[in-house]
């Protein structure tokens, strides 16, 4: 459904992504794991097209020269040339790192801004769905976004992304800085969204462990390269990988 082939991204001469091939099939949840600065967010930005916006702004302000090489395909079509808002319209919606919710708007307004691409019938239906997946948001409707806790903000960010009617949802470090309880809630919700809405999901995390149970296929990024990939079973069966990436000690 969504795939990247031979993706390379340079910041000036620094290689941020090195020849990365990654794919997410219809209805799959794909994990992308790696340490800080392994290239996870760069990958998400490049696939959603936001990198093109960053590139443009940097070029205009005389900042870093960013080079993007390789192809991104969506439903079989090459989309590297599309701007981020055009990609969102096709159905690739990014729920970014650090959430970036609209701090001055209420929860409900955040969701309604998210529904920019939806028809009013879709928006209504999706709003109800978001409230059913995250009942907490329904209670917080009138609250200003900036005053929510981290977990609430993350729920809102995912809900807002759903309002944009995604076919593929890109979740960039959705669990960062959250309590184990909130992490469990979000992981459960992620699976629910895939199962009920048939939305494919690519999720990045530093720690693979909390999301591993719901992932169908996973890639491991190291210094901008995809060093390992495989199905969940395949990766979990390898003792070296288990201890290195999933924090499971062999006894």
């Amino acid at each position, binding site marked *: 459904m969504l795939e990247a082939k031979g993706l390379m991204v340079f910041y000036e001469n620094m290689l941020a992504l090195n020849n990365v091939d990654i794919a997410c099939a219809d209805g799959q949840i794909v994990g992308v794991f790696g340490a800080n600065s392994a290239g996870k967010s760069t990958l998400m930005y490049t696939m*959603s097209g*936001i990198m093109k*916006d960053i590139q443009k*702004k940097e070029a*205009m*302000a005389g900042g870093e020269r960013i080079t993007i090489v390789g192809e991104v395909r969506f439903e079989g079509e090459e989309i590297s040339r599309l*701007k*981020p*808002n055009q990609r*969102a*319209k096709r159905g690739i*919606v*990014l*729920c*970014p790192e650090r959430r*970036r*919710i*609209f*701090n*001055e*708007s209420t929860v409900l*307004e955040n969701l*309604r*801004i*998210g529904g*920019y*691409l939806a028809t009013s019938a879709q928006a209504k239906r999706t709003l109800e769905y978001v409230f059913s997946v995250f009942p907490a948001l329904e209670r917080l409707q009138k609250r200003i976004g*900036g005053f929510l806790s981290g977990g609430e903000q993350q729920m809102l960010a995912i809900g*807002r*992304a759903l*309002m*944009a009617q995604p076919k593929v949802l890109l979740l960039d470090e959705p669990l960062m800085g959250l309590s184990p309880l909130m992490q469990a809630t979000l992981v459960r919700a992620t699976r629910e969204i895939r199962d009920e809405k048939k939305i494919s999901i690519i999720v990045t995390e530093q720690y693979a462990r909390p999301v591993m149970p719901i992932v169908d296929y996973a890639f491991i990024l190291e210094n901008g390269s995809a060093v390992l990939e495989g199905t969940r079973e395949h990766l979990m069966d390898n003792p070296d990988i288990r201890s290195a990436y999933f924090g499971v000690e062999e006894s």
Partner: protein
Amino acid sequence: MDILIYGTINSVALALYALGFAMVYGVSRLPNFAHGALYVLSGFITWSLLNSLGLPYAVAIVLTLLLTGIIGALIYQLILIRIRGMEISEIMASYAIGLAILEGLRWGGFKGMTYTLPSFIEGSTTIAGIVVDYQRLLVVVIGAAVVGLLWLFTHYTRTGLALRGMAQDERAALMLGIDSDLMAVVAMGFGSMLAALAAVVLLPLGNIVVEAGYNVLILAIAVCIIGGLGSWMGSVIAAFLIGFAQILTVVYLGAHYQMVVALLAIIMTLILKPSGLFGRQKELEERV
């Protein structure tokens, strides 16, 4: 009592000057220094439509609003979009455009005290012993209507909500499929229309002179800085603060200090509370 009435009228006038500027800045972070020029330009457009083409007043006004909106959008699409995000360049370029428009008008012969627009309704009434003409009352009514409609627009329409999303986090808006370039053009179009609206409502109160362009720009900037750049409701409240301060100055000090009030207010705000009275979010950011 006259302070209250004329203070309110003056405040609403200031709010009308400032709303367009606040909208453009709020959405696309563009300090539109051509704002005052667009104000004067739309005055002359109305005058020309009225006197050269002989159109009915109402038609001329509607046409002016549309034309100014289109001119603003074109200025953005053709020139300013290329320097998006570089604030100093944006100020220089938009100021240059403003200068070109204003001095171009002067060069084209639009100078002197001969250009006036008729009032919408002639006559006056007395409120609590003070004589107020209908045009000034209309200023207050239209000002209140504009603020109300703007609020409804930004809270209940798809485009309005998108504009607010973009005002808060452009990149997050992009991720949700909102075309930020298009929205910036739309905002500039609306902002220019608001400048034109202020012009057609306020200019019948006096002559259309090129110099007004500079004053309107300074007043709009003063209101926006004091209200907190990007905060629309803050601008409205700041308009009332400056509006009343100006009238009090006129009453107790003399009319020629009026402009000083606005400039002093800018300086005071920048020293004491740089984010403006209501720039809440920006203030938070400054603290972090």
